[in-house]
């Protein structure tokens, strides 16, 4: 899959490497901004309050 994507990126080899790095960085940003905060609602140990007022 990743090999297929890499082969279908346009441009010479150096440009494809740069494009891959940009894509990886973009995926990381998306994960940190959206995916991980959403996932953290399903882990337990961020809950430090008493009562049901703010259970995530």
């Amino acid at each position: 899959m990743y090999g297929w994507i890499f082969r279908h990126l346009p441009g010479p080899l150096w440009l494809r490497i740069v494009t891959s790095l940009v894509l990886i960085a973009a995926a990381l940003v998306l994960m940190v901004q959206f995916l991980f905060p959403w996932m953290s609602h399903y882990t337990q140990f961020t809950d430090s309050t008493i009562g049901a007022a703010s259970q995530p």
Partner: protein
Amino acid sequence: MVLQEKARQAAAPPAGVVILRGTVQIVGELLITAGIILLLFVAWQLWWTNVESDARQSEVIKEFAQDLGGAPPASPDASAPAVTGEEFGDPVVSAAPGHAGTIGIMYIPRFGPNYTRPIVEGTTSDVLDTLGLGHYGTTAMPGAVGNFAVAGHRQTHGAVLDNIHTLVPGDKIYVQTRDGYYVYVFRNNQIVMPSRTDVLEPVPTLPGAVPTERYLTMTSCNPRFGAEERIIAYSLLDSWRPASAGPPAEIADQVAAAVGKG
């Protein structure tokens, strides 16, 4: 024989084999990706949230310092003896700010000389995850007769109360607000189930009792890296100093470092 075998394979792998190989490869790569994402998530939660929250909380403290006017009397009267509450009268109790408003700064020398964390109104995740210790809106304000209760993360998002179990009875906990400095003394801790809202009562765990003492109650997750229970730390107000009297000598350096000398 071997040569023939190779030649046959190279010539024409059946279509079914090609599809199967491709499918297995894609599934394998997706599984590896999922594993990497989970590892990244763990790193994000246990490490990166702390980096982010520490930075944000430093900003909150800076904003609070600017709000104080930039020039708190950072030259405490070192010659003055330790003063008790009576000399300054009853502690000033201010009204609670709006949601996510900064109440003040907490200094806990037991957690390290540089332990300064903002205290912010509210206990929703937007406060606790980034801004610092969250004040339970239904409880009293610092210095008031009754229970001033705050929550903080044990792990992740700054881990503001990671070392709550290391408090020793008699440890001082300093709360700085716009009005002054409230010195609480740690008394004991208690491990309870998350449903025990009575620890937030004006007299902790005694619903309906009329308070005569000024409590500070801190709540956090227990055990570390888990949330099956809550650890509660109770402290009692020992003394207070108005802002004009300067910070207590024991934390003068921390106050100067946190809010600046103007």
